Each structure stands twice: as structure tokens, then as C-alpha cells.
């Protein structure tokens, strides 16, 4: 008898489903409110919106999808190899550090990463003499599509590695042991053990990366070499700023949501749903015996990824070290910004975790309840709905809510609330990816046991779910915090007095000739993120 085919009793599930519905509603309010605000403002002037459909839009849309598809392919395909290599070697010196390092690009503002990449491959980069010698003429930098792709891969390859690895780590130790006992080689083990898990996780991860690349703005413009490289995000920004044409902005945004949403939907159909392993793991640790050939190949994959990701980061560090770090650290403004950044990030990460957990739990509950039937709309929404937030530009959310809130009271008081909420929701797709594999696996193992023993509510959370979820929760929290340390686009109109965070300070210094200070602050941000990841790893491991 297949366990998952038998629906569990309904009452046990309604609470979880309600939590997920509430989380979805919260996201809906955030997006709907912004849209409502803009529609209200756009009430006059829809004719200009119709004019948005021209050749320019066609070209921009085509480029947006093309570069995002290439970026996704180049980020995710190598990530599979690297994640698998890391999964096959659960213990080696520096492994934990590599994983922590792989979370740092998330927290770097796009321009910092772009400058880091250019410090290596730019016209005046470290490798420029090499490329010049190879090409026989002066190297002109990787501006254009190659520059966009390299920078997107720098951002997204490490992200994909971490998310895929998280999925691979849900493979029960017993299966690894069994594969070792059966004498499975790397290929058989990939086919029967790793690929099923990867296949379940890949559409989600690829969809996430695709959305991040499709909405890229600073990287596309700065490294694109000219307006040939323009994304829809740029067009939306343009419509809202100089043109101040909310109707056009809404139309462009809907085009972006429709196109990107379609791609993500197609991707998600290509996946497979995983049937969790229902037995309790008895093997104490993963038993892996990769051969010498495989080990060296894996070492090459890991090293190549490490060099690729660490290179631009090293450039960021080198630039940062040239700044007067001690003076910077002593500045009251920097200390206050660090405190503000951390506080906002903690609040955003907490909110993000609550919402994400609600979605993950609800999705699983719906899946259990439906048995083998087709997933309902609500279940699908709980799965990928949150991710759609990523395709709505922060500048749109910011402007929409500004319009709504200006009647309510002092908009400045709302600025921190906006930052926390938007950052929390923007980080949800990541947190969901980090939480879901572990939760689904734990649920598959424990659901019937809990039902049989009558363990529910607080006791279940404390004794059953928490031990299994501690590590992914720590990872998700750290991820969400790292992400929240980044962007500020949402408050452009609100006024910045109350949200002078580290990235804000960085941009402010950069915007007033103080490039050294900005480089120093970028280093601060990176170190802060690394420290977060270290703490998360430590905390997640503790007591295991």
C-alpha cells in the first residue's frame, strides 16, 4: 500500500492550509495594493499605454527572455555538477567555507559585483593583458552579452549550487548506504539516487534564476555596452521616472509578468514530483565511496566554481582594503547604518521565514490531502506563487504603495515598513526553496507516525519537525537576511531618513566621488554576509 495515496484526516490539515492561504493573501495585498495605487494614478492616460506595444517593446522583450534563458542555462547546468560533487564529498577541508562564500554574492549590490567582474575581465582588468596577447589586439572588456552572462552566472551559480545541494541533502543516508552496498558507480548512483531529487528541485531553482536574470537592471545596462541590451525592467523604470506614465508602466509590468510567468510555468511542468521516503533513517551518516577518478573530476568542478565565484569577490576585497577601513568603521554614520541594516534584515528575515514556512506547510498539507489527484490551484500558488513577486519591479511596488499611503499619513513612517515587507517577500522564493525539500522529506517520514501516536501542535513542532528543520531554517534565515542587506529600490520616493542602511550609504558615497569609501563599505557588506552564513551553519549544526 502506497502511503502517500491515502489522504490523511482533514481536520489535521485545515490549520496548515489556512496558514498558507494567509501568507498568500499577504503577498496578494502587497502586490495588489501597489497595482491599485498605480491604476488609480493611471486613470487618465491609457491611450499612451496602448502605444507601449511597438517594435521597441518587441525587441526589449526578446532580449530580456534571450539573455535570461542563456544566463539560467549557464548558471544551473554547471551548478548541477558542482552541487553533486559537493554532495558526494560531505567532508573535506574548506567545504563549509565554500558554501558560506557562495552565499555572499546575494548580498552584494549589483554594481559592486559588476565592478568586481570587470576588475578581472574588464578593459583594465587583471586578465586584460592575457586576453590582449591571445587576441592580438587591445582587449576591450567583456561588454555586451558575454559580460551580462558572466555577471549573472557569478550571482546565480552559487545560489543554484546551494539550493540544489540542499535538495540532495534530503536523500536519506540509507539510500546512500544502499547504493554503496550495491556497488553503484557514480553514473548509476546519479541515475537512481541523485537525479530523481535533482529533477524535482531543478524547475524551481531554474525558475528562480530565470526570474532574477529576467528582471536584471544595473548589470544589463552597465555591462551591456549600450541600449541594445535593455530589459523590460529598464523600460518600466523609464516609464515611471522620466516619462512618469503609470499606465505604460503597468502595461509593461504585465507583459513582464506574463512572459516570465509563462516560462516559469513551462519549467515547472518539466519537473517531477518526488515521493518522499517514508522510513526513518537508520544509517548514522552518509556512506559514500567515490573512486579516485570521480574524486578528481569532482575536485575540478568544485575548484572551477570556486575560482569563478571567488575571483570577482577577491577583487571586491582588494578594492575594499584600499579604503581607509578604520576611519570608516569609526564613523558614526557607518555604525548607525550597520545597526539599521541588521535590524531591518532581521525583521525582514523573520517575516520571510514565517510566510515561507506557512506556504511550505500548506503545500505539503494540500498534497497529502489530495492523494494522487492533480494539484489544485491553491497548491500550485503555494508552490510558485510567492516567486512571482520577483518579477514585479521594486520601483513599481514602491510607487504604487506611495500613492496609496500618502493619504493615510506620514509616508516616512512607512518607509522602514515598506523595506522590511518588500525584502521579506522578495526573499521568500529563496527561503521556500531552502525549506521545502527538508520539510517534505520530514513530513513523508513522520506524518503517519504522528497521526498514529496523536502527536500534534506544539509537541509535534518541538519534537518532530524542529530537529529536522533546524538546519534548513537556519539556512533560510541567513539567506533572507543576506538578501535583505541588498536592495533599496523600493523607497526611492518615500524618503530615506529612516532607512540609511549600508547599501544606501554605499550608493551615497559612490554618488559623490567617494569611490574608496564605497569599496570599503562593499567589503563590510560582504564580511557581514559571510559572518551571517557562518553563524547560520554553526547554529544549524549545534546539538545534532
Amino acid at each position: 500500500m502506497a502511503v502517500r495515496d491515502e489522504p490523511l484526516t482533514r481536520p489535521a490539515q485545515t490549520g496548515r492550509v489556512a496558514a498558507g492561504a494567509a501568507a498568500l493573501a499577504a503577498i496578494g495585498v502587497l502586490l495588489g495594493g501597489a497595482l491599485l495605487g498605480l491604476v488609480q494614478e493611471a486613470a487618465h492616460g491609457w491611450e499612451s499605454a496602448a502605444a507601449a506595444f511597438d517594435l521597441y517593446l518587441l525587441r526589449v522583450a526578446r532580449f530580456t527572455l534571450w539573455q535570461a534563458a542563456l544566463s539560467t542555462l549557464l548558471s544551473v547546468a554547471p551548478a548541477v555538477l558542482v552541487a553533486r560533487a559537493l554532495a558526494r564529498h560531505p567532508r573535506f577541508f574548506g567545504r563549509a567555507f565554500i558554501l558560506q562564500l557562495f552565499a555572499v554574492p546575494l548580498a552584494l549590490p549589483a554594481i559592486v559585483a559588476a565592478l568586481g567582474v570587470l576588475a578581472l575581465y574588464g578593459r583594465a582588468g587583471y586578465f586584460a593583458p592575457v586576453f590582449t596577447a591571445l587576441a592580438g589586439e587591445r582587449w576591450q572588456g567583456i561588454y555586451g552579452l558575454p559580460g551580462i552572462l558572466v555577471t549573472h552566472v557569478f550571482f546565480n551559480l552559487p545560489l543554484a549550487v546551494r539550493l540544489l545541494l540542499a535538495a540532495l541533502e534530503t536523500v536519506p543516508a540509507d539510500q546512500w548506504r544502499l547504493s554503496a552496498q550495491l556497488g553503484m558507480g557514480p553514473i548509476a548512483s546519479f541515475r537512481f539516487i541523485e537525479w530523481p531529487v535533482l529533477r524535482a528541485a531543478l524547475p524551481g531553482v531554474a525558475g528562480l534564476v530565470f526570474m532574477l536574470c529576467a528582471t536584471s537592471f544595473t548589470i544589463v545596462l552597465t555591462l551591456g555596452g549600450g541600449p541594445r541590451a535593455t530589459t523590460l525592467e529598464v523600460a518600466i523604470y523609464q516609464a515611471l521616472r522620466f516619462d512618469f506614465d503609470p499606465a505604460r508602466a503597468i502595461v509593461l509590468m504585465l507583459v513582464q509578468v506574463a512572459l516570465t510567468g509563462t516560462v516559469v510555468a513551462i519549467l515547472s511542468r518539466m519537473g517531477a514530483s518526488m515521493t518522499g521516503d517514508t522510513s526513518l533513517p537508520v544509517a548514522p551518516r552518509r556512506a559514500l565511496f567515490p573512486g579516485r577518478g570521480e574524486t578528481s573530476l569532482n575536485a575540478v568542478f568544485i575548484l572551477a566554481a570556486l575560482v569563478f565565484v571567488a575571483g570577482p569577490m577577491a577583487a571586491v576585497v582588494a578594492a575594499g582594503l584600499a579604503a581607509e577601513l578604520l576611519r570608516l568603521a569609526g564613523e558614526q554614520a557607518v555604525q548607525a547604518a550597520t545597526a539599521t541594516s541588521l535590524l531591518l534584515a532581521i525583521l525582514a528575515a523573520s517575516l520571510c521565514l514565517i510566510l515561507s514556512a506557512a506556504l511550505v506547510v500548506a503545500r505539503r498539507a494540500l498534497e497529502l490531502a489530495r492523494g494522487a489527484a492533480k494539484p489544485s490551484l491553491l497548491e500550485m500558488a503555494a508552490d510558485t506563487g510567492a516567486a512571482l513577486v520577483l518579477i514585479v519591479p521594486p520601483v513599481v511596488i514602491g510607487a504604487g504603495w506611495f500613492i496609496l499611503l500618502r493619504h493615510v499619513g506620514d509616508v516616512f513612517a512607512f518607509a522602514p515598513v515598506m523595506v522590511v515587507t518588500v525584502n521579506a517577500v522578495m526573499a521568500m522564493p529563496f527561503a521556500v526553496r531552502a525549506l521545502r525539500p527538508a520539510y517534505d522529506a520530514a513530513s513523508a517520514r513522520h506524518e503517519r507516525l504522528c497521526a498514529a501516536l496523536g502527536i500534534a501542535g506544539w509537541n509535534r513542532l518541538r519534537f518532530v519537525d524542529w530537529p529536522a528543520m533546524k538546519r534548513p531554517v537556519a539556512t533560510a534565515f541567513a539567506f533572507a537576511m543576506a538578501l535583505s542587506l541588498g536592495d533599496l529600490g523600493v523607497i526611492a520616493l518615500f524618503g530615506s531618513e529612516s532607512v540609511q542602511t549600508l547599501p544606501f550609504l554605499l550608493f551615497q558615497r559612490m554618488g559623490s566621488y567617494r569611490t574608496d569609501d564605497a569599496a570599503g563599505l562593499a567589503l563590510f557588506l560582504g564580511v557581514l554576509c559571510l559572518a551571517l552564513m557562518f553563524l547560520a551553519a554553526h547554529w544549524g549544526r549545534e546539538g545534532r
Partner: protein
Amino acid sequence: MYKWISSLTIALGFAAAMPSLAAAQEKLTVYTYESFTAEWGPGPVIEEEFEKTCGCDLEFVSVADGVALLNRVRLEGEGTEADIVLGLDTNLLHEAKETGLFVPHGIDLGNIDVPAGFNDEVFVPYDYGYFAFVYDSEAIETPPASLKELVEAGSDLKIVIQDPRTSTPGLGLLLWMKAVYGDEAADAWAKLQDKILTVTPGWSEAYGLFTNGEASMVLSYTTSPAYHIIEEGTHRHRAAAFAEGHYLQIELAARTVKARDNALATEFLSFMTGPGFQDAIPEKNWMFPAGKTSGPLHPAFEQLVKPAKTLLLPPQEVAENRKAWVDEWLSVMSR
């Protein structure tokens, strides 16, 4: 520690709940852009100077930049909190006037001296600057002496410019080319294209690429070298003087409808034209003062490029053609 805690409190959004110490005083709210109110910007000094004499509380509210400033006021409409809006420029002037949210300043502009004899009954200039290509003198010995020379230079000369769709200097260059080349601007852009290393969304990214050595020239202001001379003591970064002249940007402030009958707002605009305000402009906003300063400017400003001719298109013409010109630029540059 206290400041830490207070910044945290504000971050939590409790600021509105705290009693204002200056509640008894009259308050004047000035909307501006962020770099104006930065620690090293002119805002803090100006606030102190004005509050010495006005017996009021001057409050700056800052948004991202000049364009965001106009959008914010436009969204707030008649209900705006702002008494004064400070930080629009000549290119935004026409659109700002169209909103009907600004009222004539009614002050004497005797102190004001800006190029091209700019005069407006609503907007008061407070500083100005010229767009210019700043170059690295260690990478380029003889920079182009005119826009034409730049346009026709060999492709080994690389420049970084900003995107006119997203940035004010980017729009400035578009207008500069238009002012010099007129109807042939599109051809000129086509010729310039192989010199353009990349087009960035804003000034910061472009200047960052320039200081990193990626390009040897960047679109900025004639005053940029003054920063490097005064703050960093280096003469390495210089502006190239162009024979056709340089495009002018004048920064402006005006009273809003809310301050229609507010004497304090008028007082601030008058104050803005005098030394109490203007002294803070050159070395804190890195622009030329539009009014009288109490003493001569730092000698570094004397060494800057003095444009042979001032170029400025009428605000109305800019407003009416901006979209068409940007589209023209796009079609040439996307080839």
C-alpha cells in the same frame, strides 16, 4: 550609544510618535535630493545658517534624486507637505511648471548671476554646472578639443556615458549633441558609437568605471576635477574643453502652492541667493554658486575649464522633444 538607539527607534518607524521638540516653532519643509542632505553635502550647514536667523525649524526631506523629487511632488499634488522644492533642473522645469503646483517666487534676483541670463518668475537658480568629459591625464595626453573631434576620434579612445532614459547627465549629453549637431545628431551618434565602451544607468556607475581605469573619459561636470584637487590633492583628472561650448545645467528651487502665503518660504528663497547658502555650494555640492558667496572660491575652481560658449536649449523645447530625441538615440545606438 544614544545616537545608535535613536537611529534604531527611527528605523522602527516610531519617529512619528515622538513629540517634536520644535513644535512651538514654525516649520519650513524643504524637499530635496539625497546627496544634498548627506553629511558632507550642503544641507546640514545651510540648515544651521538659516535657523540662526529665521527663528524656525527647517526640515529637509530627501528623495533619491531630482527626477524622483518631481515625481513625488506630482504624486502628492495639492496636498504636498513641501513648502519649498529644491533640486529640479532646467530640463525638468517645463514639466514642473505644467503641474501647476509651483507659485511665483516674488523675490529680488539681484544677487543671482547664472550663464545664459536664465530668468524665470517661478524658479530660482541656486547653482549651476557644465557637462564635460573628464579624462585621466595619465591615460590621455591630448584629449579631443571639441565634441566634433571626440565624435570623429579613433575607436581606441573609450568613453563611458549615462543612459538618457534613466539619468540626468545622460539626458544632458543627448541635449548637448542636439545643441551642437541639430538635425544631424543621429549621424553624430552613429559616429560616436564605437568610442562608447558602455552606457550606465546613472552617474555613479559611470564614474566608478572611469576611476577603475576601464575607460579613459567619462561624462561628468567641469567641476569634477575640483573635487579631486581639493579633497584628494591630485590633478590627474581633468575636464576636456570643447570648442563648441558646454551644455549647461542650472539647479532650481521654487515655492509650492502650499507656501503661497508663507513669508518664511519667501525668506528662504531670498536667503538661498545670499552667502549663508551659497558658501556651502562649491565645495559641498561641487557646482558653481548661482549667487554671491562671502569670499572668493577656492583657487581650484579658477583652474577649471571655462566654456567657450554656454549651450542651453529652451526648457519647453526639451520637454516637447525629449521623447522623440531619446527614441532617435535608441534607434541609432541599437544598430
